[in-house]
């Protein structure tokens, strides 16, 4: 195999010119303890460079030496076992305890006798319901700026909420008090914070969700799936229950499958007008293209140690075994932005993830239940920047008449100013109860201008029309850097919830 690779490399120099993801971001696969299936569900950082990991089999492991470039330095110590699927783990620097989110409770674990194994398992918060359905996962966050933990609760199955607060995002205050914070959750996959400390979660394609999404958890908001809204009477802080989406729109004998392009009432953008609490997804993680099963959300706070994408978000996917990159901005008070493929080729379905201060992204997961491209049943891996900067779209911002793009490297003004270097397609998903859905209401806009800035680092695209509520799929096949290379990833999907006034 090695020899074959060598021969290919020698006689086909042409391939060397085409950069690949691995040139810029290296994946290291760790050996894991033989006595268990280390199906990583959650990862947090401990002081002195150690990691703490919760698994789907209910174990909590302390990992030392994972940051080292020599993988033989990695060692594992079992801190606790027997918990019910640990899909959230958080180290609290204030009390030095570990907080594990499990199916029906957040457990606070202490090692009182100091032998390296937990011996006190306090119930920190268990004020939500569980019925035994497989779907009723609970995903937990790390501690936020205020010292709160967040929990997102999957519905009972895809449609209903048969136990209290299923389909909700909750905040748990430092005293263990639970604050119902957002409704409308369907099947959450991960929780994370942006550089400003705002909270996001990933939801999965299914009823009311044509695609996986990255959603902004604004307290008081309704995130789109009405199945859990029966619990509003137990959450007086949330105000009145939102009106349900769709049924009113489909009165008068109109069938949900009837197609009337552009005036369909089953659109997020239309329903936002009627349902004041409804918050549209910040970014559609376009189904089948970006992923099928969005999970961990990782913010780059390494100030350049993970490459040029400081403060951007990285979203993992279980089914595609990949990481995608998200740039967000706020327009008219609402989060929106672009998702761009980033790194594929992880060994199993990714579920948990965390970046350390040195810009190393630790990820892990399993393919259990849904299958994953990686091919391995479970994995624990590290993704690091090699120090080489890929040629990528850096940021993509909405403008009143188009988009502004910046790049990680100086661009070739000839190709970047040629409108033929770009193509765009706009589409959306129906906002309706049926499972999943097609890309609908397609519009092919005209790219009327591509103006390169004087500093040669950004491009201003003029697009006609922009469509509020649509995903704007931009291809940049012809754009080159000053060295004549094309982009490592030539596509981005911008969710245009709002069109800025200026």
């Amino acid at each position, binding site marked *: 195999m090695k020899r074959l690779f060598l021969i290919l490399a020698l006689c086909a120099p042409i391939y060397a010119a085409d950069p690949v993801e691995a040139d810029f971001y290296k994946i290291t696969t760790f050996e894991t303890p033989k006595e268990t*299936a280390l199906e990583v569900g959650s990862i947090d950082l401990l002081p002195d460079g150690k990691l703490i990991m919760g698994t*789907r*089999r*209910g174990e909590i492991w302390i990992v030392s030496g994972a940051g080292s470039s020599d993988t033989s330095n990695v060692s594992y110590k079992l801190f606790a*076992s*027997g*918990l*019910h*699927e640990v899909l959230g783990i958080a180290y609290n620097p204030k009390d030095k305890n570990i907080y594990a989110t*499990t199916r*029906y*409770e957040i*457990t*606070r674990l202490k090692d009182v*006798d100091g032998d390296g194994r*937990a*011996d*006190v*398992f*306090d*119930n920190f918060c*268990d004020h939500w*319901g*569980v*019925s*035994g*359905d*497989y*779907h*009723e996962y609970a995903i937990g966050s790390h501690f936020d700026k205020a010292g709160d933990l967040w929990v997102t609760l999957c519905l009972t*199955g*895809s449609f209903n909420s*048969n*136990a209290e607060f299923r389909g909700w995002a909750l905040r748990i205050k430092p005293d263990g008090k639970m604050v119902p914070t957002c409704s409308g959750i369907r099947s959450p996959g991960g929780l994370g914070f942006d550089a400003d400390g705002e909270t996001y979660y990933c939801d999965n394609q*299914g009823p009311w969700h044509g695609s996986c999404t990255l959603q902004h958890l604004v307290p008081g908001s309704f995130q789109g799936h009405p199945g859990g809204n029966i619990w509003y009477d137990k959450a007086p802080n949330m105000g009145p229950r939102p009106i349900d989406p769709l049924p009113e729109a489909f009165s008068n004998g109109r069938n949900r499958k009837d197609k009337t392009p552009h005036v369909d009432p089953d659109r997020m953008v239309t329903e936002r007008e009627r349902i004041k609490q409804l918050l549209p997804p910040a970014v559609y993680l376009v*189904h*089948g*293209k970006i992923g*099928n*099963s969005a999970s961990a959300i990782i913010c780059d706070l390494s100030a350049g140690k993970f490459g040029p994408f400081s403060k951007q978000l990285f979203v993992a996917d279980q*089914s*595609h075994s990949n990481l995608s990159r998200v740039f967000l901005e706020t327009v008219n008070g609402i989060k929106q932005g672009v998702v761009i493929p980033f790194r594929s080729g992880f060994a199993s379905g990714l579920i948990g993830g965390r970046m350390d201060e040195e810009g190393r992204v630790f990820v892990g997961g399993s*393919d*259990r*239940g*849904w*299958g*994953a*491209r990686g*091919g391995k049943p479970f994995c624990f891996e590290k993704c690091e920047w090699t120090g080489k900067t890929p040629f990528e779209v850096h940021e993509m911002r909405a403008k009143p008449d188009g988009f502004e793009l910046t790049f990680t490297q100086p661009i070739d003004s000839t190709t970047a100013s040629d409108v033929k270097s770009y193509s765009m397609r706009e589409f959306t998903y129906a906002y309706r109860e*049926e*499972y*999943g859905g097609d*890309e609908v209401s397609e519009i092919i806009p005209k790219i009327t201008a591509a103006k390169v800035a004087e500093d040669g680092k950004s491009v201003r695209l003029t697009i006609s029309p922009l469509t509020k509520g649509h995903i704007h799929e931009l291809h940049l096949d012809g754009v080159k850097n000053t060295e004549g290379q094309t982009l490592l990833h030539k596509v981005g999907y911008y969710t245009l919830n709002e069109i800025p006034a200026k």
Partner: protein
Amino acid sequence: MFRPLLALLLAATTLSAAETAVLSLKTMTAQMKYDTPELLVQPGQPVQLTFENGDDLPHNLVFCQPGTDTAAMAMKQMENAEVALKRNWLPDDPRIWAHSKMLNPHEKETLTFTAPEKPGTYPYVCTFPGHALTMRGELKVMKAGEGLKDLHFALYLGNWKQLPDFSKLKPHREGKIDSNLIEVKLDDYKNEFGVVFTGKLNAPKKGPYRFFISSDDGSRLLIDGKEVVAYDGIHPAGDIKEKSIPLEQGEHEFRLEYFQGAANIQLYAAWKGNDFQITSLSKWLHPNWKGGTKKQKEFDPIPLAVTTEPVIYRNFIQGAGNRGIGVGYPGGINLAWSAESMNLALIWRGAFIDASKHWNSRGGGHQPPLGYDVLQPTGEVTPAFFVTDKPDAAWPTWDKTKRYSGFAWQGYSLDAKRSPTFRYTWHNAEIEESFAVEGNGNKPDGNGKLIRTIKVSGKLPPNAWYRLASGQFEAKDGSFLIKGVKPFTITAAGVQMAGANLVIPAKPGTMAITYQWIQ
């Protein structure tokens, strides 16, 4: 002029000879598998296949030519995901010869197609991204084998626990079976008889042949006078026994011996060759082999071993509600505590628990204890503490949609031996509950004991009672035996029978309860 017509007639005859194969296949809920890893049809046979999506994800069913690398085929779609998405994840691949639509969760579609003429193994797969590695199976196209010829039966009367030596007995009645299918069809005898079936079986060529039998009660198959496989004794038709033997080309003497004790009468026999599929020789088809189609088995067990210290397993445990905490103690004594009812939910001995239901696939559903002598001391997921002026009245029962009011779960602490003490509050009282084991639950010596200590501090409401157990009890040597649950006695100071409840008036202090396996 006549020739084409003749050919047409022949073709029609052949077609009508092969009955339509009516098959069903379902996607299993939350397992990323079809329920049927193998389908069997005959060459050119019309097939009517009902495909049902029992899962919460979209799935399809795509049949391919033999030798197709279905996972690679499905994966290849990702090279142009946009096109694939438009095709609803049906690969554009000439090796696909039949397929369903992409079914939404809980949709159903009936496919009708003609099985390929060429015998072989045709893989089927779900081509939705990421599914192909596990959601797959094989359609086996094989002709059917020949049946029996010249089948006769001989009926014998007798009360046996095992097959007798029929050669030394005189038949009560004999006759020919025109259908040439093995069948026990007697109007006058329901119990206590035996039947010997004899006939001829033609091996189309020299080679190995596999024989299958199952019966209620015993049976034995002989070919050319030699025993091939036996399933003797009194039993239901649970297993299928099978064995492969070499046969020369040509006719062989077939002999199937059977006896019936009482109750159910069932007899199954089949055979299979290298170039023909499993062919039933009996009219009755064993449920596991009906139509020759195998259904998916459950997961391989993952029993949790308890060695030197207690093992904790928090999960959905059957009988312990949705917030169950299983504890397996060294010495074969186990319990499940409920953080829902704040009470001991189950006690059992022997092996602890099998984690395979929760550690495979998506982890839903309730798992029963793996051991035996399972005792649910009180009603399912019911609290021990209750305020009542009539302790013989009914205790609260479990409402799955609500939590018990007045109770708050605090958690548990492990002692130096890593044995848990459970903590909770009830109104203004704080309760700690710990367990110790003595003896060995696996040994039938009557010394296996679970000692439960309940420490109550703080203030209890008036008329508070503590219930140890519910059921019918028999006082015996200072202990209580639960009627109908023989192996246990329950012993505690101050305990009294109150109707169907075994109770103690609750007060601050310590209560000790001993659950003992008496055999």
